[in-house]
């Protein structure tokens, strides 16, 4: 057939015999791509009178957007919370490995650490796109140290902090630089947190509520100041109570400013949350659900001892234990496709 290129000379690929994720369903449709952009084939047909230059048979596979993991502490022997000299190498290794699991962008997460660690690690990598070499780096997720003592989980108590002035100085003192930070998890019940939330939001950093004993009105207050995420819903927060739903109540709160959505991360491994609890959250607020792995250094490795920031983790079978802490703090080492379905 004669050449069809009225908009662009670039070749057009048509992926056939596949299912695509569209309008929240899997549809049996072809996917048309030109120069890395997905085309509307109907527009191509009628406007440009264009057609495909090459066809790729997908053998009934699913074509889906890549996963984005906003909470991952490390993997394959790499611990993001270690004050390494070459953070880039560690992040790149993990980036390449998680690509195999369908993750195309991620936020390396740092657990509560002493300021020295943040000051060393954070300046070393800039936000960059992914590609065949590995998933894209969206920026760090700083989980702590401004979290609640009662809900510290596996975080080291001695490095927890509070807000002294409630301003940028607290952040700078703890973290050093915020340039490559995408998300910060904090406990909103800490005094002077509102101004910190506003400060972070103004810089385009997502504020997430977690590791907190906040009640619903404290959480709503934080949302009104700009917080928009909840760190691993149900874990490290007060349980839902019918007279004070706590942070969990944000899913159905009527105090959320118009036009804004509160998103919530969920570790859907069947251990961190009971699947029934996950379903309750999903049914209450389906459009806010975000799956996270919260994966640790040991991901992809055989049983043994590994680090999680300042803690030591022991892998036994499918469970991980913080040494010296009782069983409730066990975590399962997580691989995406085992719990995404």
């Amino acid at each position, binding site marked *: *057939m*004669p050449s069809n290129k009225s908009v662009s000379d670039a070749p057009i690929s048509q992926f056939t015999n596949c299912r695509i994720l569209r309008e929240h369903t899997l549809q049996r449709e072809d996917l048309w791509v030109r120069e890395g952009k997905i085309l*509307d*084939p*109907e*527009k191509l*047909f*009628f406007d*440009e009178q*264009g057609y495909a230059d090459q066809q790729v048979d997908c053998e009934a596979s699913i074509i889906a957007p890549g996963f984005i993991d906003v909470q991952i502490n490390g993997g394959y022997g790499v611990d993001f919370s270690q004050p390494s000299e070459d953070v880039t190498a560690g992040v790149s290794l993990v980036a390449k490995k998680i690509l195999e699991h369908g993750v195309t962008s991620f936020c390396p997460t740092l657990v509560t650490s002493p300021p020295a660690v943040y000051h060393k690690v954070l300046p070393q990598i800039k936000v960059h796109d992914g590609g065949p070499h590995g998933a894209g780096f969206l920026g760090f997720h700083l989980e702590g140290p401004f979290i609640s003592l009662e809900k510290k989980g596996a975080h080291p108590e001695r490095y927890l902090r509070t807000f002294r002035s409630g301003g940028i100085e607290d952040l700078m003192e703890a973290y050093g630089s915020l340039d490559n930070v995408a998300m910060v998890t904090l406990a909103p019940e800490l005094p002077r947190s509102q101004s910190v939330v506003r400060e972070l939001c103004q810089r385009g950093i997502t504020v997430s509520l977690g590791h907190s004993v906040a009640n619903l009105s404290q959480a709503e207050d934080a949302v009104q100041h700009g917080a928009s995420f909840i760190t691993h819903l149900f874990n490290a927060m007060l349980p839902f109570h019918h007279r004070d739903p706590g942070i969990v109540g944000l899913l159905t709160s009527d105090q959320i400013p118009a036009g804004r959505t509160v998103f919530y991360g969920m570790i859907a491994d069947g251990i961190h949350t009971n699947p029934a609890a996950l379903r309750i959250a999903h049914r209450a607020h389906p459009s806010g659900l975000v799956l996270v792995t919260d994966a640790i250094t040991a991901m992809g490795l055989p049983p043994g001892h590994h680090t999680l920031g300042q803690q030591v983790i022991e892998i036994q079978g499918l469970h991980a234990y913080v040494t010296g802490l009782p069983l409730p703090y066990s975590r399962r080492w997580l691989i995406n496709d085992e719990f995404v379905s």
Partner: protein
Amino acid sequence: MVPPAGGGPTGGWPRVSRSGLARPGPARSNPATMCSPASFDPRPGSRVGPQLRCTGRRHVPRSGFNSRMRLVILDDYDLASEWAAKYIRNRIVEFKPSADRYFTLGLPTGSTPYGCYQKLIEFYRNGDLSFKYVKTFNMDEYVGLPRAHPESYHSYMWNNFFKHIDIDPANAHILDGNAEDLEAECNAYEQKIAAAGGIELFVGGIGPDGHIAFNEPGSSLVSRTRVKTLAKDTIVANARFFGNDLSKVPTMSLTVGVGTVMDAKEVMILITGAHKAFALYKAIEEGVNHMWTVSAFQQHPHTIFVCDEDATLELRVKTVKYFKGLMHVHNKLVDPVLSIKDQ
């Protein structure tokens, strides 16, 4: 008793109607048939040639092909769709289209031809049929409806046919209901058809009020492609596709005229379902009448009506029996079914 030469069954069929001719014969003073070469006035876009444009006596030489209406009755919708698709396939394959000589196909939309399109797609997927050298001309399109709207006929054709086959996008013609100058768009369409050499086979459907395309009752039987205001009935019937909100239903459309379809070498009308039965009766057992515009094809030398049992419910038993008795002849048109693989 030997059937009369016109091909109808014995005993008073076809009936003489008030308005038109019963069978080809001496022209009476009826505007629809009164024409002579001297009074012939070719309109832009019409095919000027040895045949008269108005619906009078046509002499289209076609060897081995009787000038007659064929009423092909199948048991159900699926069989009717399959028969129609096989017929189209055989016509295209037999024609041996090439880069120098395209097969021009007129196409309808709606629920009736859906099964036929599915079958044609199946034939393409099996490698038995190709649309590489086929040019298509759709009958109609709404005015003012965005082309990407799910109810536009562009969307219908893309989703139900074009995206599944190998037709060259440059050869798929549909009227543009969003053109700046609608009249110019209609005239240009007529010219495109003429430039393509006319339509070889025009496939169409029938509305419950006997209309073809959007040629609503009262349309001229010699009409050409033009803008039409939709009848209230049509708008109400279409409301279900627009969330039952009458204000959202288009009120105008661009449509090929009855005359445009009559110009085709062959016309195939698909009619299925009991709700179309009365229209079929009016179309073939009553006379040529502009209130039932499909009846115009009684005066086309090569018309095929493909229908299912339900669509024949208003016909005379005699008519149905006669044509069912001819099915062995009709089936020769689709058996054997030809394939490009054999060429």
